[in-house]
């Protein structure tokens, strides 16, 4: 009885979680400019309009560019930092970990505002690079955390064996360490991409009229008018996020979020 109540409850909440997102997709497929119930007809015109309008298509390309740049840089920086943390002693490692994760503790608007002032004081203009470096601060901590967690599952004797057998540190990393942590690295890469895709708070402060990523463009648009065109642009963001999550789930399993053991391949 109790279990049945719980199951029904979970089903209702699960439905409610998906509902607001589903509604946006329904609105984007509606032929009328404004959503009314029931929807007046099915059409893909709004997607056509979004893709053919340079304001939107430029924003989409910029978002993809920044996303890939953030993911790549944060993976390289984060993996290097995690390897470094493993090499220093425990006390120092703990202090540095807290330091590296601290951007996630601060309000993101504070980071965005501080970076905007910093760039302006140096006379640096908004570009793909300025937004990328800003988002890197909130993406890198995830990579560090994921890779550090994956080190726990490695037997250190494997690496020692390789170096006793004459492998230099680079070879040890490439042939022994990396294959053991590659799931975490990949998850970190995709997670960083998603972080970049979701970020409005930092990008808003660091972009100008020529460099506006899609989420910021969408935010400004929806503030003024909530119509089907905005819904189509929003649905594109959902599509990108779904793609990243799907790949992530195929590779490591979504369970890693719970800190559970990763699916072994």
């Amino acid at each position, binding site marked *: 009885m109790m279990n049945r109540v719980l*199951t029904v*409850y979970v089903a209702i*909440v*699960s439905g409610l979680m*998906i*509902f*607001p*997102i589903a*509604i*946006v997709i329904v*609105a984007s497929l509606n032929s009328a400019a404004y959503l*009314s*119930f029931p929807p007046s007809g099915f059409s893909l015109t709004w997607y056509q309009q979004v893709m053919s309008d340079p304001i939107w298509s430029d924003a989409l390309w910029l978002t993809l560019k920044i996303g890939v740049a953030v993911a790549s840089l944060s993976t390289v*920086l984060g993996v*290097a*930092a995690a*390897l*470094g943390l*493993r*090499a220093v002693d425990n006390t120092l490692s703990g202090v540095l970990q807290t330091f590296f994760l*601290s951007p996630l503790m*601060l*309000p*993101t*608007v*504070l*980071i965005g*505002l*501080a*970076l905007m*002032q*910093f760039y302006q004081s140096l006379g640096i203009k908004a570009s793909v690079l300025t937004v990328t470096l800003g988002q890197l*601060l909130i993406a890198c901590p995830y990579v*560090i955390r994921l890779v550090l967690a994956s080190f726990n599952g490695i037997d250190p004797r494997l690496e020692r064996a390789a*170096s*006793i057998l004459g492998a230099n*540190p680079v070879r040890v990393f490439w042939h022994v360490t990396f294959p053991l942590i590659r799931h975490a690295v990949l998850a970190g890469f995709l997670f960083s991409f998603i972080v970049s*895709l*979701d970020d*409005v*708070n930092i990008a*808003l*402060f660091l972009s100008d009229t020529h460099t506006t990523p899609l*989420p910021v463009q*969408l*935010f400004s648009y*929806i*503030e003024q008018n*909530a119509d089907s065109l905005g819904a189509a642009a*929003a*649905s594109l*963001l*959902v599509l990108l996020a779904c793609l*990243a*999550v799907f790949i992530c789930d195929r590779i490591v399993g*979504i369970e890693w*979020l*719970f*800190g*559970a053991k990763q699916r072994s391949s």
Partner: protein
Amino acid sequence: MSTTVENGRLSAAGNSLLRLNAGLLLVPALLFYAALFVWPLVLSTWGSFAPAGQLSLETYAHFFGDEFYRSVLWRSMRISAITTLMTLIIGYPIAVYLSQNWRKGRSLVVFLVIAPMFVSAVVRSYGWIIILGPNGILSSLMNSIGIPMGHLLYSEAGVIIALTHVFLPFMVIALVGSLQQIDPSLARAAQILGANGVSVFLRVILPLTLPGISAGSVIVFCLAASGFVTPALVGGAAVPVMPYLVYKEGLLVLNWPFASAVALILLVATALVTAIYTFAVRDGASKRRVVR
């Protein structure tokens, strides 16, 4: 024999060299953080305390001296606290369900509850605008049943509903983490000793998940307090919160010292509330142990 000792020494020397080299891998990240995180924050903080080049507290006096700004801070804290409580109440049963491994359809629930976390807050807020708006689904539905109802868009209640939706996954993840660590034989032992379902939950499960509750609450409270997109879209200018004020003063009014001050006040207020809360939870947990 001596060669092996030498070899041992050699490898030890090699090891420490290796460690030193590996330690150097921290340098790029440290440099990056110093240049683009620590330094800008120091500059921004300095700017809020010295708007005209010399030390003064006028930006802070300006904030706390004004009824409107104080009310914005209070609203931010209130909305975050209610959101945290809502995610806890709604999320706990979900976490209990997910932490029981044997259920069918578990991965579907994981997907439905957790996957929205990866969808941009802009998109989800837009969904809530469509639902809560003047001609939205909710008021149409209510009116068709015959319950006349105004719309919740641009209201505090609307913002709380949308924030609860956005941050529920974080709470569920924190709770599942702590529920999974509980040894199932503890609940069984309590049942054998004659406890009914309710008292097993209240006296065994709930106390053991306090760390998870505390962690989840801190995460959700911080995220809700610094969330900007959802309050701005669902609440707009009618429900100004601290991050909205930072955005307005920083990007529209261009009063940077004041914007920095607002952001720092938000940071300190959030840190204070979460510190007091964590302390209270820990204190309560240890007191109960003494009573037992």
